[in-house]
């Protein structure tokens, strides 16, 4: 088991990073009145941990007995019926899924699942807790239509089920949904908090963890706790005892993007663009989300760029990111950005150096 999972706090009481929020949630749940919840915050800040702990608080240990299912839903969409396949994680009391994976058919999935849950409403002996919890991941990836249909079903079936929504940015969640939920913002943990967590794990594992090394990991993790713990573990595998000068292995895909950026800066031609495309394909094959590729690529390019070009390049990056969301084939748009950048940069080089 990875340390990330091993040392994940199981109950709200054990939560260390967002203690205050955890206590509030506990109070909320113990008073038996649980509204819909919307958790949002950057990756690696502890949203999932909080949600799991919350479920445990609500349903006891049974919430931890999950099974994984690959389910197919038959959905009637007007004239024809569509089969949608999704992986779900479920226990007796909750279902967790990422409707965003269904692509543009996401709106059907949300409605269908909630309806189904309403049908199989669990009945408690005391007549209490007559609801299930539906955990929806990546709500911000849902299409606008899906969010609208979610809003309606939320109202209609609110007595049967509670929704826990989880996303990175609430800005892509419609106003209507946000106002129907209790919004919980989860901050990224501060570097001190990360260091403290790392030290806690080090102590449990019986490791000698130099404090400046822990600080370096925390700094490199970009305030992402999960990443910090993962890199601590990889460092442990690579070299132990730790030395404070030890290199922290970077993510391979990040290095790869750095390589792409170097390629782009070196030569600007259709041929090079073609090579870059090949490399982008490799990233996509490994499921690196295109938005992240674009963002990282921009970051790498900006580091090497003259200040006067930065504004324009950022503009185009934003432009193509937007188009990427409108479209379907991400590679078309990333490539268009790369081509645009090459074109700008080439013009700049010619203007500067003749």
């Amino acid at each position: 088991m990875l340390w990330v999972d091993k040392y994940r706090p199981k109950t709200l009481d054990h939560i260390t990073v967002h203690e205050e929020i955890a206590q509030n949630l506990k109070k909320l749940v113990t008073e038996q009145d649980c509204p819909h919840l919307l958790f949002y915050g950057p990756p690696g800040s502890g949203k999932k941990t909080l949600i799991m702990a919350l479920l445990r608080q609500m349903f006891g240990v049974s919430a931890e007995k999950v099974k994984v299912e690959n389910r197919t839903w038959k959905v009637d969409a007007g004239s024809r019926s569509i089969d949608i396949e999704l992986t779900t994680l479920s226990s007796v009391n909750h279902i967790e899924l990422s409707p965003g994976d269904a692509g543009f058919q996401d709106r059907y999935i949300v409605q269908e699942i909630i309806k189904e849950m309403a049908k199989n409403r669990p009945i408690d002996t005391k007549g209490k807790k007559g609801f299930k919890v539906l955990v929806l991941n990546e709500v911000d990836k849902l299409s606008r239509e899906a969010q609208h249909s979610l809003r309606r079903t939320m109202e209609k079936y609110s007595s049967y089920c509670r929704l826990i929504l989880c996303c990175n940015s609430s800005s892509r969640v419609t106003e209507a949904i946000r106002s129907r939920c209790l919004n919980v913002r989860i901050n990224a943990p501060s570097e001190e908090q990360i260091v403290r967590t790392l030290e806690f794990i080090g102590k449990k594992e019986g490791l000698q963890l130099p404090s400046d090394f822990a600080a370096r990991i925390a700094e490199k993790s970009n305030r992402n706790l999960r990443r910090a713990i993962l890199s601590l573990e990889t460092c442990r595998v690579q070299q132990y005892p730790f030395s404070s000068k030890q290199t922290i292995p970077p993510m391979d895909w990040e290095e790869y993007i750095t390589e792409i950026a170097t390629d782009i800066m070196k030569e600007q031609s259709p041929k090079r663009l073609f090579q870059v495309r090949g490399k982008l394909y490799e990233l996509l094959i490994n499921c690196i989300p295109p938005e992240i590729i674009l963002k990282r690529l921009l970051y790498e390019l900006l580091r090497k760029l003259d200040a006067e070009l930065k504004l324009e390049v950022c503009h185009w990056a934003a432009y193509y990111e937007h188009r990427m969301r409108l479209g379907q084939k991400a590679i078309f748009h990333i490539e268009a950005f790369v081509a645009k950048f090459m074109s700008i940069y080439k013009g700049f080089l010619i203007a500067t150096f003749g």
Partner: protein
Amino acid sequence: MVMAKRNSIVVLSSDDEGDASNRSLSSNTSYAKSKSRSTSTRGKKRARLSGSRSCSSKDSSRLHEINLLGEDFNEVFTGFNDSAGSRRINTEELWVDKHKPNSLEELAVHKKKVEEVKIWFEERLKPSKAVCSNNVLVISGQAGVGKSAAIHVLASHLGAILCEWNTPTPVIWQEHLHNSSIGTPYTSKLDEFETFVERIRKYGLLSTFINGESKSSIILLIDDLPVTNGKAAFGRLKNCLHQLVRSTQVPTVILVTDYGNADSADYNAWCSEEIQLSLLSSGACKIAFNPITTNSIKKVLSRICQLEQCDLTAQHVDLIAKASGGDIRHAITSLQFFSLKENQKLSLSLSVTKEKENKAFTLDDGYSLHFSRDETLSLFHALGKFLHNKRETGTAIKDDQQEAFLIQERFARLPLKMDAPEKILSQAHVQPGPIADFLHENVLDFMNEEAIEDAWTVSSYLGDADILLTKLQGMLSRYNEAEGILPSAAASVAVRGVLFGNSHTLSSRWHAVRGPKLWRVEKNSLYNKNEMFRQRITAYKGLSSCHTSVMATEYMPALKLLGGRLESPQLSVHDFDMEDIDFDQMSLHGEENDDDEIEDW
């Protein structure tokens, strides 16, 4: 020859006994056959209609069965002789039948090919010669290149009798109901064909009808093979043909129609190719007929014009010949249609012809459409047009442009040296999605090394096309009307974007067109995604699922490092088997269909 004769005698005696089980069956079917034939007035097969029609009454069914072959034969034979003389008076007839070639000279097929076939026949028909090893000739060619006509003419030239097998018309349901009430079981056309082949192999031809002229030799012509559906039936057909090739004693000609290479994915085309291959491997000879050259078609057309006394300008004849695409049957029909119009609407055509004649020079679309076959283009042909992006050169066209509104220098492009892109798209029958993918995959190869600005324009337009396509998918079935327009618009944007953006084309040279790698990437990434999920949940007992993005960007790299695989930070992608798509290495240089090439040959 002696063999065949003796065989026929044997069969005759068995016929008199009249007990063969398949006899009653075939007599009925042939009855049905002749009935349905009489309604079908398809072009060249018309000649057969006049033959021994009298014998279709039920009483004579016994005699009729003998004529299962004989009838065809008689019809063909008599029709043949007739068509030259007596029939020509009948103006109602289709010219295709009316002006059937009657001598080798009139045949439009290339001399060399005719000679080849002739030699083949002569070898087999020589009475002195011992039994030849193989008696089957496969003739392939497009529709309407005169395969059947050549055989007919040759047969009459050599004085041989031609027996023809045509796949009978299918039994329709009503007919089947009717038949089964009488007690006739249904037999598939394939069964019939098999029985037929079986008999041919065993007994040669049942040539009762040659009573008078029993000396003449026989040629068997299998004009179209039964349609098969499914692997099993196809296998049977192949097997049956194999047997035929192996053991037939009669010179047999099998005609196979080539479907244009355009629909190479088509099942039919695949079948015909497969059959040809299997026939060849069993030892048949093959002669391929090329499309008829424009010149030969012109010759035939002008001969017909003379006979029919319609005065078409040489220009029109030329145009028809060109538009026919080597299909002489089509050319003659067009000619008839065309001259018909001229005669009947003389007053109208007078005013119109002037206009027409102007247009005829440029082979304008609107005009030539009247008699051109709908051409199909292969996907690669179309892609080649778009990617090579051929344009007019020089300033000769400046005049045209002045009429149009003024465009800034950088947006102006020379006119395209091809049909409108949309037309090409419709000819190539491609879906908008794939065409965008194909263009995206290949366009960079066709760009000038310096032209990164162009690359941007092109990729931006492709992005537009993608967005248009996505909008369509999002709305599913709700906006039916929009469904037709949006994808076409997307395809148009993609193609025109490529044509517009690629303003500094490379001088044309050989390029391979690849299949879109994007498809493989999508497939593989989906696979990897599921794999990641599985790994995460089973092997690492994660309690909660997490986003794919998190998995890919954080867990996977860490897991790779933890797994002790520290060799390189390179992504381990290279080990996928990049299966070669069959069209991977397809040359685009068959692009211009050179008429010259055929002419030279």
